[in-house]
C-alpha cells in the first residue's frame, strides 16, 4: 500500500519500499525453513499475501502487469492443487525494471 502511495510522490522511495518488501518476504521464508517452522497455513498465508501485495502494486500500473498478476493468481491456485510451486516473480521483475530502466533510457 505504501508503495502505491509513494509512487506519485517519489519513485526512489517506492523503489526502496519494493526492495524492502521483497527482502522481508525472502527473509520470512528463510527463517521459517531454518528454524523448521514451515506449515501449510504459513505457506497459504505467504501465497495470498504475495498475490494481494502484487495486485495492489499492479492495479495502478495496469498494463501489462495486471494481466501477468491475473496469470499468477491462476498459477497460485494450480500450485496449491498440484502441490508444485510455480509462480511468476513479478515484483522482482518490476524491481529489476526499475533499476535497469534509467540505463535503457540513456
Amino acid at each position: 500500500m505504501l508503495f502505491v502511495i509513494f509512487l506519485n510522490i517519489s519513485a526512489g522511495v517506492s523503489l526502496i519500499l519494493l526492495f524492502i518488501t521483497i527482502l522481508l518476504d525472502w527473509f520470512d521464508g528463510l527463517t521459517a525453513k531454518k528454524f523448521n517452522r514451515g506449515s501449510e497455513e504459513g505457506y497459504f498465508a505467504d501465497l495470498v499475501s504475495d498475490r494481494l501485495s502484487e495486485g495492489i502494486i499492479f492495479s495502478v500500473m495496469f498494463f501489462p502487469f495486471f494481466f501477468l498478476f491475473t496469470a499468477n493468481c491462476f498459477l497460485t491456485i494450480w500450485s496449491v492443487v498440484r502441490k508444485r510451486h510455480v509462480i511468476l516473480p513479478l515484483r522482482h521483475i518490476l524491481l529489476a525494471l526499475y533499476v535497469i530502466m534509467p540505463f535503457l533510457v540513456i
Partner: protein
Amino acid sequence: MNLIFHFLFNYVFVDFIVGGTAWSYLPVIFIFSVLIDLTHLPYLLRVRKNVIKRRFGSESRTRFHEMYGLAIISFLLCAAFFLFDIMTVSIAALCLLLHFSLDFMSGKSMPFYPYSKREVSLGMLPYGYRNKVVFEIGSTAIMGVLFWLRIQSLVL
C-alpha cells in the same frame, strides 16, 4: 471489516492516489468496495433468524470471497481494460484488492476454498467479540472523519 469501513477506506486511499479527484469516481469506488461482500448474502439468508449472534468468519464466505474469486474477478477486469477507460478499471481493481487485503488481514479465511479447507488467520485484529466490535466501530469512525475531511477539502 464492515461495508462502511471498506467504502470509506477505499475512498480515502483512492483519493490520495488520484490526487483529490476520487469524487468523480464515487460510483465505481462504492460498487467495487462492496461488491465482494455480496457473497455473504447466501450465508445471511441461511442464518437470517439469528443473524446477530452469528460471526462473519470463513463460513460466511463463498469461493468468490477467496483466491478463486480474486482470480476470476482479475480476469474479468483484464477483459474490462479493453472496453472501459483505464483509470476506471484501475480504480475498480484497486478497490477490490484493498477489500480482499483488509478482509484477509482482519479475519479468518479459507484462501484456497474449494481446493483446500485449511483456515488461515493472520490475527491482526484484537481477540474477543467485544474487542473486535470496539475496534470496528473505532476504525470506521476514524475513516469517517478522514472521509469528511477529504470531502471538506473538495468543497473548500
